[in-house]
């Protein structure tokens, strides 16, 4: 079966969720949401999933603060964040470009990032657009920093950065990204050309593995129907359901 780019991204993120007990998915996250649901299915339900703003996939009933209380208690194993800008130290910017507060470009705001990034052990950064506009040397505004000094209580932080071209893992001690795989059809030169920050190379940079036919069938069947609850337009566009 031919694998769509979105399906590859979903499969790639799902593999990073292996062994996680509870994955939470924030707003505007159809690909991470699909990945969490795929992992739930592959783990025969051992991975539990909470998708914000869904009807049937959310497990919160104690108001806007409950997600954050759970994170602070260590009840959320993985979460997803993105950024209008992401830099080489994994600082993320969800606020704007230019000088604060009267930015040249203003985005919607930092949402829960300035807490969840510190407390959720495995935060996967996801940004499909991989250009020098999105992956920059230094963000213009730090919504949440990639790393913190040792005296700061920080059990969580960035784990990996998945883009439309490749996968980087994040080394928290070095505060740097390492390229580990490039998606089929893309090249190292292309990744270099489109990345605004310096990164390391894994000893063996591979091609990002594709899902097998059984996984694709699972994705296009039950997972597609599940993700249509919070993300009907996405499910229609990618899976035709």
């Amino acid at each position, binding site marked *: 079966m031919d694998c769509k780019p979105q399906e590859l991204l979903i499969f790639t993120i799902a593999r990073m969720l292996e062994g996680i007990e509870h994955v939470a998915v924030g*707003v*505007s996250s159809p690909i991470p949401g699909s990945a969490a649901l795929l992992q739930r299915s592959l783990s025969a339900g051992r991975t539990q999933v909470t998708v914000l*703003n869904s009807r049937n996939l959310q497990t919160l*009933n*104690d*108001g*806007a*603060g*409950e997600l*954050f209380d759970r994170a*602070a208690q260590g009840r959320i194993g993985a979460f997803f964040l993105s950024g209008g800008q992401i830099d080489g130290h994994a600082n993320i910017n*969800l*606020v*704007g470009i230019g000088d*604060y*507060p*009267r*930015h*040249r470009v*203003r*985005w*919607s*705001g*930092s*949402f*829960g*990032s*300035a*807490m*969840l*990034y*510190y*407390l959720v052990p495995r935060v996967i950064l996801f940004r499909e657009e991989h250009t020098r506009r999105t992956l920059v040397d230094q963000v213009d*505004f*730090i*919504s*949440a*920093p990639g790393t*913190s*000094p040792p*005296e*700061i*209580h920080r059990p969580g932080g960035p784990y990996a950065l998945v883009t439309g071209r490749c996968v980087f893992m994040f080394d928290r001690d070095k505060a740097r990204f390492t390229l580990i795989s490039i998606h089929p059809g893309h090249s190292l030169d292309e990744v270099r050309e489109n990345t605004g920050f310096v990164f390391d190379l894994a000893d063996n940079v591979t091609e990002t593995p594709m899902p097998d036919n059984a996984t694709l069938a699972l994705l296009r069947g039950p997972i597609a129907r599940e993700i249509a609850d919070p993300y009907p*337009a996405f499910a229609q566009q990618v899976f035709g359901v």
Partner: protein
Amino acid sequence: MPEISIRELAGRLPDGATVAIPPSRSGVALAATRALIDRKARNLHLIAIPTSGIQADMLIGAGCVATMECAGVTLDEHGQAGRFVAAVKAGSISLRDSTCPALVSGLQAGEKGIPFMPMRGLIGSDLLKYRPDYQVIDNPMADDPDPIVLLPAITPDIALFHAPLADRNGNVWIGTMRELMTMAHAARQTLVTVEEITDTDLMRDELRAPATIPSLYITAIARAPGGSWPLGLPGCHEPDNEELARYAAASRDAESFASWLGPVGV
């Protein structure tokens, strides 16, 4: 509690008030928001608990807002909140950027009548840099250095929201929208619009009482069926996505917004 009209309800919310508003998925009082715009409310200080969308954007576009405190303003899958973005870029509103749990925690401090709430995170972010009211202390309970942020209590003048049901005594049922309970507890006054009013006493109903705000906290109630339109209301109405898309397109510039809004104050 006597029922009042939406127009009277909007009149109870004075210019200059600090107003707590819920997120778009919760009970957003959009009919009352329209009434506020019609009464030409001015100089409002909005506090989103913790984010907002069309409601803040409409009020900003209509010139009602002086300050916006929020963790985000977005029209979600319909795109950017155009009037919010334009006002921030123009510097025509004062912005207090925050993060979701900080707004919820500050409101919880208000609810408890204590001066502040500590919260993990925030240290090293530019949010903290631009919030002189957020203070970092060393955790006095720890043996080793442990910096932690203190958030000042949020005590809004008014909480404004839309709920499914009220009773004749002024108790308001909110279902799973628990942030509305925290808002009502923390605010000095709470103005509510509801889908309907029941003759049953909600506080005497074992199933509904846990999700009911006692009338003690409620200042005034107006009946407004569909009062969150074009947003939805959990368990009652789905969002009107076509209208939300129309709004998103209109919010991109002042003229289209004005024509979407139509005549004001008639």
